[in-house]
């Protein structure tokens, strides 16, 4: 004999958010008459401690075995109320939520209608909950090793945090050295400390850490498995240098006769050799041979490096290696790309010599950069007298990227400060809004204003060298509508800096598929919850940190690196991993082995067991999307917690209530 179903229903007022529109008393009274409902209450704030305690108390005192809370979106408080159920001794999956705020009180004008809709939604939840079953999670052992992808500041931070807790980290970086974009920067806002000075110690720490295995000049080839048990194949590209023999003495690149324009690190402003490290403080301090540019590889001659190498570390016959590592969790910190300013032709980048991008300017002003820190025009000698800095290039623009790139305002203000400090030149900043929301940011803005930078509010229409007014000859003229005075203005300057926005890496989508996570429309990786779970992803055991998730400044990236590390450490600390309980299962009594479901699974979680000729779902791989359920013709697959019975019951609850109102 089945246990009697005893449902408790709780209607939340949410202050006046719900109660101001929905007649919560009436809904509560009405819910009390629904089948199997033992008690029905309404309360000011169900999510408050007393509200939660009310549930726990009722479960014990009234012997409730199902709970329905009608309040806000389950995305906000489902876990809260599940917790309340657990503290009352009830399995969390015997709880169901009706969303009568976001989907009702906030969106419905007519109070009577809103109350009716609330009733239908509550009935739906009540009907559904009686079909819900207690679910127990599956536990799998957790491999304590971690893969970090990306050696920028976020990845370095995450790797250090984990390695310092004596867990092993495999850090994979695509470029020859760690450092990422931050290594290219000169000063960092708003403190103006030297970027390299604060970053390189961390890089070195990682590089020599006994709990870190570093794979630079490497990429992740493939990932399989699931949280706690990932198997990762890494392609270690041939450097043509024997890593153990190389001492990083630098003789090879000194001797290399081939100069190559460095368009990665030096953004095309400087040169490097065909054998090189991107910058002096590179970690590891081991060069790579740039095969497409190396004379040996092109013509078979030269071999200068090989001749001079004191340790015989040059190995022209080195091959790519495929290495397999086992890890329990993964942190993606693959960073961003800067917006390609050429896409906005009216700003003249690539056409007008003295239009620079923000990254170019970073290199110009950097003491370790191609000009040794001298800010000069493209001719290499002339010092600009006036500089125009254009904000939001490629950002907040319906034609390119809709979003705000978060760092450009501060970076532009930093440039203003540096220009004035180094050259004393006049600076114009062209902005849409100034956004300085973080600690000490606005103070920096005030300081730059005091230093005399001119801020002009308006989106720049055009940068041109076609003079038409006196004083414009030989200048770059910035055409803008100054929206504060409502006038068109032409500002002649010597140098234009385009504060280009940030965008997702070109291969972000590919990477996302490789790691089984998703991308937003803008191709940033999507976090599990934008507020409450910002570094986790939909795929258990895969986390994101830094700008790969969205535009971020350094402090935020570092914070996310740490946060992701903390999440990973917390997983490792558990020793075993709870797998999503709402997975799909095959009823092998009814499965006819038609294999329809197998290709539908986005996670390859379904296999065909040949000797019984039935489908089987690996619960650890299943993410609970239910696509297979929709495909199974014999209805032999059930998605736990979203069973057909539950969904139909929910629908019937809503429909019957609607029909009841229609009839009356």
């Amino acid at each position, binding site marked *: 004999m089945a246990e009697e179903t005893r449902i408790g229903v709780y209607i939340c007022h949410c202050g006046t958010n719900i109660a101001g529109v929905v007649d919560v008393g009436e809904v509560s009274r009405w819910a009390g008459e629904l089948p199997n409902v033992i008690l029905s209450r309404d309360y000011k704030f169900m999510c408050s401690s007393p509200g939660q305690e009310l549930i726990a108390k009722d479960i014990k005192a009234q012997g409730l075995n199902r709970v329905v809370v009608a309040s806000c*979106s*389950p*995305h906000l408080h489902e876990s809260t109320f599940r917790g309340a159920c657990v503290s009352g001794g009830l399995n969390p999956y015997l709880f169901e939520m009706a*969303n009568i*705020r*976001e*989907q*009702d009180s*906030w*969106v*419905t*004008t*007519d109070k009577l*209608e*809103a109350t*009716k*809709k609330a009733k*239908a*939604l509550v009935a*739906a939840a009540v009907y559904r909950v009686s079909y819900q079953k207690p679910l127990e999670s599956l536990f799998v052992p957790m491999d304590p090793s971690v893969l970090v992808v990306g050696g920028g500041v976020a990845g370095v931070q995450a790797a250090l945090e984990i390695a310092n807790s004596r867990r092993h980290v495999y850090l994979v970086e695509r470029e020859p050295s760690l450092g990422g974009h931050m290594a290219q920067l000169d000063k960092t806002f708003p403190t103006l400390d030297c970027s390299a000075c604060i970053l390189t110690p961390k890089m070195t720490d990682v590089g020599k850490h006994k709990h870190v295995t570093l794979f630079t000049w490497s990429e992740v080839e493939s990932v399989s498995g699931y949280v706690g048990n990932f198997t990762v194949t890494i392609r270690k590209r041939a450097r043509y240098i024997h890593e153990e023999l190389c001492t990083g003495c630098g003789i090879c690149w000194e001797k290399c006769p081939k100069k190559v324009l460095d368009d990665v690190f030096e953004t095309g402003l400087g040169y490097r050799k065909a054998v090189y490290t991107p910058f002096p403080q590179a970690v590891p301090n081991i060069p790579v041979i740039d095969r497409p540019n190396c004379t040996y590889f092109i013509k078979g001659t030269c071999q200068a490096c090989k001749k001079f190498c004191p340790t015989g570390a040059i190995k022209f016959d080195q091959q790519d290696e495929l290495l397999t590592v086992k890890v329990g969790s993964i942190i993606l910190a693959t960073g961003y790309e800067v917006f390609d300013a050429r896409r906005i032709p009216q700003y003249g980048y690539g056409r007008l010599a003295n239009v620079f991008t923000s990254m170019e300017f970073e290199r110009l002003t950097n003491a370790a950069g191609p000009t040794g820190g001298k800010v000069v025009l493209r001719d290499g000698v002339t010092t600009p007298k006036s500089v125009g800095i254009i904000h939001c290039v490629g950002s907040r623009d319906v034609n390119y990227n809709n979003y705000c790139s978060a760092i450009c305002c501060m970076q532009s203000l930093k440039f203003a400060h540096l220009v004035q400090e180094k050259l004393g030149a006049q600076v114009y900043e062209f902005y849409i809004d100034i956004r300085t929301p973080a600690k000490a940011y606005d103070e920096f803005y005030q300081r730059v204003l005091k230093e005399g930078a001119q801020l002009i509010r308006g989106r720049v229409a055009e940068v041109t060298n076609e003079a038409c007014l006196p004083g414009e000859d030989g200048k770059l003229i910035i055409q803008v509508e100054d929206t504060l005075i409502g006038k068109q203005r032409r500002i002649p300057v010597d140098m234009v800096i385009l504060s280009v926005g940030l965008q997702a890496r070109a291969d972000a989508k590919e990477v996302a*598929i490789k790691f*089984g996570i*998703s*991308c*937003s*429309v803008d191709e940033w990786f*999507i976090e599990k919850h934008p507020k409450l779970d910002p570094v986790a992803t*939909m795929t258990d055991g895969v986390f994101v940190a830094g700008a790969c998730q969205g535009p971020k400044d350094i402090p935020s990236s570092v914070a996310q690196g740490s946060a992701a590390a903390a999440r990973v450490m917390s997983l490792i600390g558990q020793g075993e991993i709870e797998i999503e309980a*709402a997975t799909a299962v095959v009823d092998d009594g009814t499965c006819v082995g038609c294999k329809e479901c197998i290709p*539908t699974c*986005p*996670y390859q979680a379904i296999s065909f067991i040949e000797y019984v000729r039935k489908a089987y779902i690996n619960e650890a791989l299943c*993410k*609970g*999307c*239910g*696509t297979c*359920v*929709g*495909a199974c013709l014999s*209805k032999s697959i059930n*998605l736990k917690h*979203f069973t*057909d019975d539950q*969904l*139909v019951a*929910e*629908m*019937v609850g*809503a*429909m*019957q209530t*609607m*029909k009841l109102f*229609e009839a009356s």
Partner: protein
Amino acid sequence: MYEPKIIGFLCNWCSYRGADTAGMARMKYPPNVKIIRVPCSGRISPELVLRCFREGADGVMVLGCHIGDCHYANGNHRTAKRMAILRQLLEYNGIEAQRLCVDWVSAAEGEKFATLIASFTEQVRQLAPFVEIMQ
């Protein structure tokens, strides 16, 4: 004129959040659609949609993530195929395909969600009540 009864199946990750977004922005829309949350629009079997009609629903909405934007990589590809066929089949049964709305709403598209609800409710209202055409 009558008040159409509509069931909406929304995927948890995009559309349901889109509905939340609309709510948070206090956008107003008609109360006719009752929302059922599913993990992915790929979970929605044609049977589920048809059962709504059997229960007397005047319209059914199936909303998922934009194609290419699915939280489960490509669950909504199947939705797109299944629902396209189902719509045809409804036509072949003499049931207006306009009663089945299949669309894509992202978490950010609160406004699109509200507009969609309003326009679909109107669209269904233009048709006769489902129970009536079945008599």
